[in-house]
């Protein structure tokens, strides 16, 4: 067929293509469906799998690996699962919003036990399909009910999936400066300037900690200043917290920004994920919270949130949420979990140091301090797309084009090789 295929964006076919399209459609409904762009991150893993080089390293997907490069099931999770098995629970439908216990434990983890919001019933919390699903429900809610400017301002760069999530929900997406490629650090002044220019009553998204993909977080004093500007501009803060505990090893410390904003009187929405900090990736455990102005308002908001959930997936998957509940509701098991999280965070912090040291040993004269300044699973190395391509081709080191590496893929066994490879392509 000579004519280019076009995605049919409305029910009306363009007249010029009418005859051709009808001929096409008489054979199949799907002929106009275009090939979608491959997922950048998943594509990396697929290419990695095909590579036969024994020294290959996968620094693509953000899933934690132990020092042998293997997936890690947290001991506290194993224990929780064993306990659950003994309980012989049934598989009856969960409530649309998930169990009340799971929701309460989640928001208390974020805001701290005994927080005023939960005490006064100001939170509308529901279980979401991990972080992504929680973001989607939040976005759907804002699209329908947000009385302000329905535009979401994302930091530059942000997690690649933020944009599609918001766009699919019908919200417009814009940017504010965040990462400074010159310093491989936080562009604080740029951020403040851009935030000050955002139209009043817009939605602004923040990564609560361990910014993905850069690993660059504002310092506490900087968060305070940001909070003040956000208040002045009457912006609506949307916090995405996917790494609580995983960033610094301390759940309280990692929740600083969220708690600070709440303390400052912002009515925030918050998404949480247990994918990384409990290693429950595939079980899809997460939560969405809206902090309301009154208990009655929170109840109303929750009723509306449920109306959005029901026609999407009816009610959430229980297995991961049950594990979370088991862990967080038992003080002793919770302590074990906190140790497990610290273990993961510490290993990441250690390999960051090791990578930096080895680069120095290789004789690199570049400033690699950002490797240890940045926090969490990811590191924005500063490598250009060309260098990233080279390191993959010549050294079988797999990463995303933006120079982002997942530190979880770095081990004491491969860090030397990695440093060598990085040095070769950047010297």
């Amino acid at each position, binding site marked *: 067929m000579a004519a280019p295929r076009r995605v049919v964006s409305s029910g009306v076919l363009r007249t010029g293509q009418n005859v051709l399209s009808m001929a096409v459609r008489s054979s199949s409904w799907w002929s106009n*469906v275009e090939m979608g762009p*491959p997922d950048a991150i998943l594509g990396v893993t697929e290419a990695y799998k095909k590579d036969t080089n024994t020294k290959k390293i996968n620094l693509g*997907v953000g899933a934690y690996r132990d020092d042998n490069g293997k997936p890690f099931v947290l001991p506290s999770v194993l224990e929780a699962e064993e306990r659950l098995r003994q309980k012989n629970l049934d*598989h009856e439908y969960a409530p649309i919003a998930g169990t009340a216990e799971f929701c309460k434990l989640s928001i208390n983890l974020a805001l701290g036990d005994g927080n005023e919001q939960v005490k006064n019933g100001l939170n509308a919390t529901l279980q979401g399909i991990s972080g992504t699903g929680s973001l989607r429900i939040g976005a759907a809610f804002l699209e329908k009910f947000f009385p302000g400017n329905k535009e979401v301002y994302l930091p530059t760069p942000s997690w690649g999936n933020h944009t599609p999530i918001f766009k699919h929900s019908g919200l417009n997406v814009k940017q504010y400066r965040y990462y400074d490629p010159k310093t491989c650090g936080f562009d604080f002044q740029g951020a403040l300037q851009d935030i000050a220019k955002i139209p009043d009553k817009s939605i602004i998204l923040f990564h609560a900690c361990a910014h993905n993909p850069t690993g660059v977080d504002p310092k506490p004093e900087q968060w305070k200043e940001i909070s003040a500007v956000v208040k002045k501009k009457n912006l609506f803060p949307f916090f995405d917290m996917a790494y609580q505990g995983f960033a610094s090893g301390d759940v309280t410390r990692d929740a600083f920004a969220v708690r600070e904003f709440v303390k400052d009187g912002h009515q925030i929405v918050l998404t949480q994920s247990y994918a990384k900090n409990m290693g429950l990736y*595939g079980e899809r455990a997460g939560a969405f919270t809206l902090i309301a*102005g009154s208990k009655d308002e929170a109840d109303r908001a929750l*009723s509306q949130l449920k109306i959005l959930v029901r026609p999407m*997936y009816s009610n959430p998957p229980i297995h991961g949420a049950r594990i979370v509940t088991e862990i967080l509701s038992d003080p002793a098991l919770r302590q074990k979990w906190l140790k497990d999280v610290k273990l993961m965070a510490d290993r990441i912090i250690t390999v960051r140091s090791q990578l930096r040291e080895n680069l120095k040993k290789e004789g690199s004269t570049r400033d690699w301090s950002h490797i240890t300044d940045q926090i969490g699973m990811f590191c924005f190395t500063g490598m250009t797309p060309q260098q990233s391509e080279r390191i993959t081709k010549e050294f079988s080191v797999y990463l995303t084009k933006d120079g982002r590496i997942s530190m979880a893929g770095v081990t004491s066994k491969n860090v030397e090789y990695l440093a060598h490879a990085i040095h070769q392509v950047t010297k």
Partner: protein
Amino acid sequence: MSSQMRQVMRRTALLVSGRAAWVTAHRGKIVEGDMKGASDWQTCTACKQSQRGLATGATGRAAVETNINSKMASRFGVVQQGPPIEVFALNKAFLDDTFENKVNLGVGAYRTEEGKPWVLPVVRQVERDMAANETLNHEYLPVLGLDSFSAAATKMLLGSNVAIDEGRAFGIQTLSGTGALRVGAEFLARQLGYKTFYFSQPTWENHRLLFLNAGFNDPREYRYWDQNKRGLDFDGMIADLKNAPENSVIILHACAHNPTGSDPTQEQWKEIANVMKEKKLFPFLDCAYQGFASGDLEKDAWASRFFVEQGFELFVAQSFAKNFGLYNERVGNLTVVMSSKEAIAPVKSQLTLLVRGMYSNPPNHGGRIVSTVLNDPKLFEEWKTCIKTMADRILLMRDSLRNKLLELKTPGTWDHITQQIGMFSYTGLTTKQVEHLVNVYHIYLLKSGRINMCGLTTKNVEYVAKAIHDAVTKFP
């Protein structure tokens, strides 16, 4: 609060101008309050807005404070209370009820003869094995789910089918049946630009909003249930389908229609397919009860397979909630059948993008359980036995209920109870009769007269029959 009190409050309210305006705005709706005195609150039970004001005497200058302008000015003050979802509200009412002989005929979940949920023995066994299997972890599934799961699920539905052999049928793992419907609907709306969809009158209450939220904007009904016949309004259905514009997406229940339990016969399905072919309508089958309807997987898949054999391209939303009893693990499969395999890669890539922007990837636990069972011949046979157990108990309850009603000589015809199939029965009871059952007998069923046969046991079927008899004779 007594209605007398309410009257007093209403009259008092009228003396106060600020309040008068509020009362006017909420006229006709019951006003309640907690009567703590001068600063009592009243709430409109319809929209849930509250207001309070001075109780008596102060005309004209009443301070009326609404909680929309409550002290903490909030963006979301405008959000109204959403209407409760009937089936869950009903379930809650049942749970809260302390009456000893209460019966829950509401939510669609299987119950044993003891009235308890049933975790299938084969499911328990697989969960035990999975727990002991140290090679398993909680890593992300692919965006489209476990391939071993989807392939098996699609094969279970379509059987040994030329579409599968020719590589033009595939499945993707979804968040149970709802998730399959939603992903499928989003694809049809956003990728193919379809905007019109048809659902049966009545249908599962979630269909309409699901398709609207997915991007369709033209919801239409096709006639289905004939209240007088207590069966399928086939002529009405055909007439409505004949009037459907090209590219309309038609939601069909593959078997065990929810809520009526009335399925078309094979001859009727053939005619439906002919009309759909002629009018170029797109079949989207909702298959939530394969195996559960008749007890036989093959039999329940007849309609789906027939449509594929007829050369249709179609979607089927499969749920494993009921037939595996895995309600809360959200296990589903969207089967896609196309006319050629060329477009499969682009279609999969677009489905991938849709899923990624919605929930990234499906949950692991339930999918793995089902995959394990479907792919192991021995476990598969065990599972089929479990399904037959559930289906047989339901058939027994249908028989019992009908027999009891005949014994009691309850007015009306009750053959539909044994003619209908699956978990549900549209009893034909009126709203008044339903209310009577709920309020007087503590028997919980939907306003539509839908009952879940699984809620019946040998111990309560007589009680229910007598209650129905009473309702029908009191409110003919």
